[in-house]
């Protein structure tokens, strides 16, 4: 969504969390107040999603004539629920193609920058060189720069090279926009690795290249995963970069297709829009639920992405 993520302060919350777990069942146990407020918030947060989910299975006439909540007291409508809307959205509204396009955009844009950023992070963490601090502070300040600044000039370059509308155009853009965050997350994580281990590898005659691939990269897997999930969700859910560098058409990703083929069409109806919406959300939600732990670590170790 908005690319606002992350932080600089709460650096290592996982250890702190463990330290405090002994507090369970001690003073200030959950009062009714806490329970009710949490319950109400959760209810408010989830109800709109439930509405989308239920509507997506209802036939056109039902979805357009009554609210989804009426399902709870009209069991006769249950038999009319079906996957028809999903089939229509996937095929006729071309969300199936868009789904594949999004994968085609998101996977390379997620995996290619990792190694590039990891090498830079390694240099910033384990190598001494003049200008190191300045160059890293430049990365930190670039975290805040809004990616809007890139669009006008890059679009002109892409048009000259006839790259606009192609997959490489978005891959490269996302790699560029995600780079500062990737370096930042990885460097912060590598800084917590034991320096003595790297020193001893050096004494054993390992080159930087070997140390990087055999030692530092495998040890940094949690941070690599955190960034990968982060970047994947960001690219998958992105609308702005996709609209500007790909636009509608054969290569349109799912956000663009959902907006243009369904939401923007007055005749599409809520039954199709919701089915399309669910198709667009299912993969990031699954990734999110299964990788939540890594994702949280990424959030708490990361920074502010531009």
């Amino acid at each position: 969504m908005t690319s606002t993520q992350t932080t600089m302060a709460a650096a290592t919350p996982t250890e702190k969390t463990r330290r405090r777990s002994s507090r369970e069942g001690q003073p200030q146990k959950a009062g009714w107040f806490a329970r009710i407020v949490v319950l109400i918030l959760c209810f408010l947060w989830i109800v709109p999603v439930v509405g989308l989910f239920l509507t997506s299975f209802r036939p056109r006439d039902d979805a357009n004539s009554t609210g989804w909540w009426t399902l709870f007291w009209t069991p006769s409508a249950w038999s009319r629920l079906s996957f028809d809307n999903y089939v229509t959205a996937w095929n006729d509204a071309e969300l199936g193609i868009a789904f594949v396009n999004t994968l085609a955009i998101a996977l390379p844009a997620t995996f290619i920058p990792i190694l590039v950023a990891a090498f830079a992070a390694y240099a910033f963490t384990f190598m001494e060189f003049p200008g190191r601090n300045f160059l890293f502070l430049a990365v930190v300040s670039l975290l805040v720069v809004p990616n809007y600044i890139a669009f006008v000039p890059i679009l002109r370059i892409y048009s000259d090279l006839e790259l606009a509308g192609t997959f490489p155009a978005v891959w490269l853009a996302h790699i560029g926009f995600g780079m500062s965050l990737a370096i930042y997350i990885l460097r912060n994580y590598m800084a917590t690795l034991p320096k003595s281990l790297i020193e001893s590898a050096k004494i054993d005659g390992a080159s930087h290249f070997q140390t990087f691939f055999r030692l530092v990269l495998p040890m940094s897997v949690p941070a690599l995963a955190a960034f990968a999930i982060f970047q994947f969700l960001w690219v998958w859910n992105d609308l702005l970069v996709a609209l500007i560098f790909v636009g509608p058409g054969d290569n349109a990703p799912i956000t663009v297709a959902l907006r243009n083929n369904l939401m923007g069409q007055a005749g599409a109806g809520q039954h199709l829009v919701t089915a399309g919406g669910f198709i667009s959300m299912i993969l990031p939600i699954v990734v999110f639920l299964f990788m939540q732990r890594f994702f949280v670590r990424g959030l708490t170790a990361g920074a502010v992405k531009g």
Partner: protein
Amino acid sequence: MVLKILNTLITVGVGVIAAVVLYWLLNKIAELLPGPWEDRIKPYLYILPAYAALVFYLVYPAVQTVVFSFANAQSTAWVGWDNYTQLLQSESFQDTLFNTLLWMIVVPVVVVALGLAMAVLADRLNPRWESTSKTIIFLPMAISAVGAGVVWGLVYNYRPEGREQIGLQNAIITALGFDPVAWLQVTEFHINSFFLMIMLMWAQVGFSMVLLSAAVKGVPEDTLEAARIDGANERDIFFRVVVPQIWGTVLTVYVTTLIGVMKIFDIVYVMTNGGFNTNVVGNEFFNQLFSNFNNGAAAAIVVMLMLATVPIMIYQVRNFRREESMA
């Protein structure tokens, strides 16, 4: 379709292998250098590709955008400050700036407050309920703005009086005997903008909660214990003991959310496209670029946005340096 999937997998594979080969080559080049030069040059070669991406996609365009902002719509002739003066003098852009300011004032504060409330209250539930409730609040982070537009479209949906309402909010107020309201068209007091803000809050509170929860759990137990022995009540403990200790994280969440809000585009674009006086800077940029084909105005808007982020950038860098020196 199969071809595209195959293509994707090949791209990932080739991309990663190409990156490995690139670094192997860079490393070899460094090793060919005589004696001390190898160690002197190697770090720069390691950061070179990453920096090339940053320079090409952020630094160079930033400079070029400033240049374009002083040129006309097609970037063919200089126009001086015209883009800026025309924008700032137009009433619609002033409204756009005001709306963006409203977003900046309202959203980060609410996101921090709700996130903190959720973090503190969920902390008191038993572990299973804590993690379930947190997942529910956190979940919208995985949903795109377009997806959120579909979700909230069902909440804000409006139909003229007399027809059965299929939008949740109108169903509730008509059941209570009021007339249905076209929520996203209510311009009085920018109420429609607030309904769009709710969507962003819905998406962002989870992020705020996760960070603040980690901070709250990090507050040392003995400081709470000491306050309790001194007879402080729970409210005093929260505001005088807990909040001061997590203040750094509160600021971080606030600043992070603020930056996101300044750049808000997709929610507004999807829901109203800036209509009914809900326009914001991000959406105006997009429309100048793709509806008006005005490179100059679009660039000028970005320059203003960039200037607005400079104080935050300075704050972030100073913050980082302080933490590094403490570590």
